[in-house]
């Protein structure tokens, strides 16, 4: 018992501290007779842990094909961090933890081959962790979410691959990727005049490049 603790209850309640505590109990009856006994109680620590999602500077967002960075730490000696089976869904491939896994303090989950989003929209993957020691389990789980963004796609329909000087080009730009923006990285007009586009010009999917171009020379 803690020093100075007395109780007349047949089942006194105390709050033990971490580690091994020896409780010495002494009983005295109405006649002044005494007896004593002792018991040992070992209180094990409930393990704690921290999940830090360092992926893409902590945003948790990656582009298709990239790796992730989820760091697992625990100050509890002997702690085993368990990853529940990860549901990658039908559009993300390359995941290594569909069956879950176990990790130790300091381990990092990277999905080393990269996660590939085969769809045209972002997909969220949730990693759920728990921690336990051989003696105790922490009932509180923690999660890290990764958003796997698709590689944007572009379709170009050039209905004017060859025009006469003074005519307009008509190039339809489209993308099935949600939120896509199409941007010109460079234009090489050469000796052709009349063009107005330059690097940085942007288009929304479904719009077209249309501009009249002039070839004042005698060759293509």
């Amino acid at each position, binding site marked *: 018992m803690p020093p100075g603790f007395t109780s007349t209850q047949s089942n006194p309640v105390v709050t033990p501290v971490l580690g091994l505590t020896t409780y010495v109990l002494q009983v005295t009856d109405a006649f002044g007779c005494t007896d004593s006994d002792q018991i040992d109680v070992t209180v094990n620590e409930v393990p704690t842990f921290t999940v830090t999602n360092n992926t893409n500077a902590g945003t948790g*967002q990656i*582009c*298709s094909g990239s790796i992730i960075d989820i760091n697992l730490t625990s100050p509890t000696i002997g702690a085993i961090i368990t990853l529940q089976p990860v549901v990658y869904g039908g559009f993300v491939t390359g995941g290594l933890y569909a069956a879950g896994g176990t990790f130790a303090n300091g381990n990092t989950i990277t999905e080393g081959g990269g996660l590939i989003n085969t769809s045209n929209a*972002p997909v969220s993957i949730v990693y759920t962790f728990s921690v336990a020691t051989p003696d105790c389990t922490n009932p509180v789980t923690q999660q890290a979410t990764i958003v796997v*963004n*698709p*590689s*944007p*796609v*572009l379709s*170009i329909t*050039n209905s*004017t*691959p*060859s*025009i*006469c*000087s*003074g005519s307009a*080009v008509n*190039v339809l*730009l489209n*993308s099935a*990727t*949600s*939120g*896509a*923006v*199409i*941007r*010109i*990285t*460079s*234009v*090489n*007009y*050469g000796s*052709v005049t009349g*063009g107005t*586009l330059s690097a940085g010009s942007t288009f929304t999917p479904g719009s077209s*490049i249309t501009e009249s*171009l*002039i*070839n*004042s*020379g*005698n*060759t*293509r």
Partner: protein
Amino acid sequence: MRYNLEVLANGCTTTGFFTDVIVNPNPTFVASNFAPEICHGDQTSIFFGSATAGHQINVVSVFMVP
């Protein structure tokens, strides 16, 4: 000429797209008549010239001037 393009979405970029357009020059030509007046039965002498590469000159009509 060539338009080089990329597409961006959700912080991701795919590069390397392009499309080409050939802008053909409007052909020009000059007709030089070296024999504006000939005798009956003689041949005409009209020279057609064009600086445009790959040109083809077609006679689209011939008519008599009263």
